[in-house]
């Protein structure tokens, strides 16, 4: 009974989130006490559902590109011919993480203009590090005897990578993607300062008109998305760990 509780709570959260996005009006009585009379209690400058989907799209694209680049980079620097690029890659990826996304936005706008593009660049740079470091950890901490057996069986370098190294590292890589994605979900809100269509719009609108209900609904949707995606990827990771064998 106890073990089911978290699952039930997550299911409820998902249902409430969907209900709110599809019929925000039905939640108006809940949010009404938070606003001054005459002010709207539900975001009225666009569809919350559309903004949520655009927010997710931005995050997915940025995470996908970050995953591809970070994993490829980690594979490169763990091969014998790429080992000398390890320090360089680490530094680059670290700079991506250290550089504040807001600063990236400020620098990117003059180059690529307003909208989704600068946001994607900022999220991509910000998301590289966890995926890169986790992939690196995964690929360099494989059991020695397994790697030795794979070589001894006559696998080529490429076969070893595809059939042994990546499948065994997958749980750790997914953990990196999970971290990166959750960070991106929250960071994407600042994209709205440069006119990207994200849930940040709702929060910014609330701040500008001193509307607590707007701020709260923008923040809560992002929070709920983060919790659900984090849990979903955690479950995927646990499944992959089981499949990769617990020895």
């Amino acid at each position, binding site marked *: 009974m106890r073990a089911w509780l978290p699952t039930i709570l997550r299911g409820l959260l998902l249902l409430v989130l969907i209900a709110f996005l599809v019929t925000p009006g039905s939640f108006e009585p809940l949010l009404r006490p938070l606003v001054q009379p005459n002010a709207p209690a539900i975001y009225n400058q666009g569809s919350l559902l559309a903004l949520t989907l655009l927010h997710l799209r931005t995050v997915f694209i940025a995470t996908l590109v970050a995953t591809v680049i970070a994993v490829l980079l980690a594979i490169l620097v763990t091969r014998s011919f790429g080992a000398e690029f390890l320090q360089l890659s680490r530094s680059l990826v670290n700079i991506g993480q250290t550089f504040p996304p807001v600063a990236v936005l400020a620098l990117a706008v003059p180059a690529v203009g307003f909208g989704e593009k600068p946001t994607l660049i900022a999220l991509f740079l910000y998301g590289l590090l966890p995926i890169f470091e986790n992939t690196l950890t995964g690929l360099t901490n494989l059991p020695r005897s397994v790697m*030795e057996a794979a070589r001894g*069986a*006559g696998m*080529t370098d490429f076969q070893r990578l595809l059939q042994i190294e990546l499948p065994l590292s997958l749980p750790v890589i997914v953990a990196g993607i999970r971290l990166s994605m959750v960070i991106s979900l929250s960071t994407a809100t600042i994209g709205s300062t440069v006119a990207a269509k994200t849930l940040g719009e709702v929060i910014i609108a609330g701040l500008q008109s001193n509307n607590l209900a707007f701020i709260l609904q923008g923040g809560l949707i992002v929070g709920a998305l983060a919790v659900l995606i984090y849990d979903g990827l955690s479950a995927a990771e646990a499944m992959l760990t089981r499949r990769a064998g617990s020895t």
Partner: protein
Amino acid sequence: MIEIEAVTKLYDDVAVVDNVSMVIEPRTVTVVVGTSGSGKTTLLRMINRLVEPSSGAIRLDGEDNRSIPGHELRRRIGYAIQGHGLFPHRTVAENIATVPGLLGWEKSRIAAKVEELLTLFQLDPKMFGSRYPHELSGGQQQRVGVARALAAEPNVLLMDEPFGALDPIIRAKAQDDLLAIQKHFGTTIVLVTHDMDEAFYLADKIAVMDKGRVLQYGPPAELVRAPAAPFVETLIGDAERPFRLLSAAKIGAAVEPGEADGEPIGEDGTQQEALADLLWSGRKALPVVSASGAPMGRVTLDALLKCAARPQ
């Protein structure tokens, strides 16, 4: 046949394997013994080119092992290691199918081979084929590791301390199984170990290595009778010498005509086993039977004591 010719491996100008030459006869078990750091594992790994020699050559059945790419060479040579190295994300059947899969065998042929090997190693294919390595006991994992090494029917099987991680009872069983398998397939086995009991039990020939050199290479009894270096003597152990001689010889070699009472003993056991039996039961002689159960004569305490004495 494996011909190792003047092979040297240098790491930072230090010879880990130093000018080693030896010929390993086909269908025999050769055990390389030595302390850790003696270069025995490096020597083994140069046969399938997991390590490339600095100089010298290794020929397999007359063919230089550098005449084909390393990964293709390794698909032809079985390789089993300590701690089995099974792929944890693949089932037992998939693990065994590794090399046949790399060689592009047909599915039906692979499936038949997997089933044959599992049965041979006393693992029910239906029950174990779909299990993952972590669901097996240590002894079962080790058997699957050897089965995987034999899957593509290699002529040569290299083993690096394959039984090192097993407890003594399972290890004895695994050693017996290995000898049975070797007879069954006629595989040439080169096995590396630091366990002298294991070496004397398994080997047709033993190579003793120290500091990268082979000090002596010959049948087990020869090592006891005429150790070529003080190190070989130390390794065998003065107190162990008579027992090593007995453990390296079969009962069949000490049989004499005659009768004896009591439980018979098989002719293919070691003379050490016969002596133990005699001492324990307090008898002077044991009846000996052939593998098929036919009486062959007897083995006496006196005969065994002669076998164990220093050769003149």
